[in-house]
């Protein structure tokens, strides 16, 4: 069973349906035990970095992610759900960055690009050893974000470009994350979701 962590409003319906296409039962939940015990946990994210962390803390999300990692249970962060895996983010922070969960050491900062958000379909440069991108290496994925991590973390990275190079995805043992929205990336996104689900 796959759990999608519900910690605020947003479009979780698409995520639920998209992960269901990979052939597993999917629940949208804010229940700690369900999120902890699920075979795979998806941490989505909408809104700003700090708002996302606030929403997460209301459902004890950071401790769920850490405990799952300690117990070797896979977790996938999507969009802001990827960003908050880092130690800090500068969105709306006016000086002192906001703290993230801190699975990865690094800062999520604004992209240096003339038009923001980076909104639309972009290709990625994925490591050949990637599990997530197997079979969809050359395809486009749907991005909506203004902030990103720009230094490599984890064991396997995928990169994309908008104004500057940034991390489009990370695979790091039991934690994976994508800056784009696989649940909104058509058949390529569904194939990537299937790759993750089959790796569980």
């Amino acid at each position, binding site marked *: 069973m796959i759990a999608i962590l519900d910690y605020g409003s947003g479009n979780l319906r*698409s995520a639920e349906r998209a992960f269901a296409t990979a052939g597993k039962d999917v629940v949208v939940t804010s229940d700690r035990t369900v999120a902890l015990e699920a075979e795979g946990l998806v941490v989505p994210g909408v809104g700003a970095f700090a708002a996302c962390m606030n929403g997460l803390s209301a459902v004890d999300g950071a401790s769920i992610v850490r405990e799952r990692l300690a117990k070797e249970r896979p977790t996938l962060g999507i969009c802001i759900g990827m960003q908050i895996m880092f130690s800090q983010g500068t969105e709306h922070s006016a000086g002192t960055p906001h703290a993230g969960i801190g699975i990865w050491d690094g800062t999520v900062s604004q992209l240096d690009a003339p038009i923001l958000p980076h*909104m*639309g*379909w*972009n290709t990625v440069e994925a490591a050949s050893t990637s599990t997530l991108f197997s079979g969809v290496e050359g395809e486009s994925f749907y991005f909506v974000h203004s902030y990103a991590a720009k230094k490599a973390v984890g064991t396997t990275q995928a*990169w994309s470009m908008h104004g500057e190079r940034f991390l489009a995805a990370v695979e790091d043992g039991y934690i994976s994350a994508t800056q784009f929205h696989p649940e*909104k*990336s*058509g058949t390529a*996104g569904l194939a990537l979701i299937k790759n993750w689900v089959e790796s569980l």
Partner: protein
Amino acid sequence: MTLSVRIIPCLDVTDGRVVKGVNFTDLVDAGDPVEMASLYNLEGADELTFLDISASVVGRETTLDVVRRTAEQVFIPLTVGGGIRSVEDVDRLLRAGADKVSINTSAIARPELIAEIADRFGSQVLVLSVDARRANTDSGFEVTTHGGRESAGLDALAWVEKACALGVGEILLNSMDADGTRAGYDIGMITAVRAVSKVPLIASGGAGSLEDFSAALDAGADALLAASVFHFGIHRIGDVKSYLGKHNYPVRTLAPR
């Protein structure tokens, strides 16, 4: 690694059906929205936009159901506009499966709505739809309401600048002079709005020939919205994309599966 230009079919929906007219009048039935959404997805649409033009509460409920059913089977971004007046309206649409909402009249009436929505859900969910036409204002463009029938008394460029400062994530610029005419996008208007905004810009209104699409991109549009040319089969989405691809604009092509 380059961001592709987006081709966005727009479905005007009322009482569960897609309709299309010229200059917002003379509406004719153009099909079932969920079926058309699925078809456009298969043809390579990069996003879909539903504009709810229902006048009734029942019509709006029907649109929520259309959004739900579409989001269950189409895994590309879905924007919904029409009749959104509050943060709660946005929440309902996002929960039904919309990814973005577009607001227009309600933001003109109460600009703070922009900040309220952006604060709650982030700027990225919020598209400002601007129905503009050429007029004797400071910039030469004014904002209209009621499908272009009435002046909102706002200069279009001043309104765009204000809305961007309040936190919209994207602008949908609809030329009321060009809408439904298939005589080309209003290039001057796109150029002028591009010059005062740093968020993605969707050009809308007037798409006819394939050259019209590339002209709008040259003027600074990031995405191209069209309705009648797609609904009535004048161009397929694939035709537009292969034309743009041939002329070196970055487009997303579908891999065979």
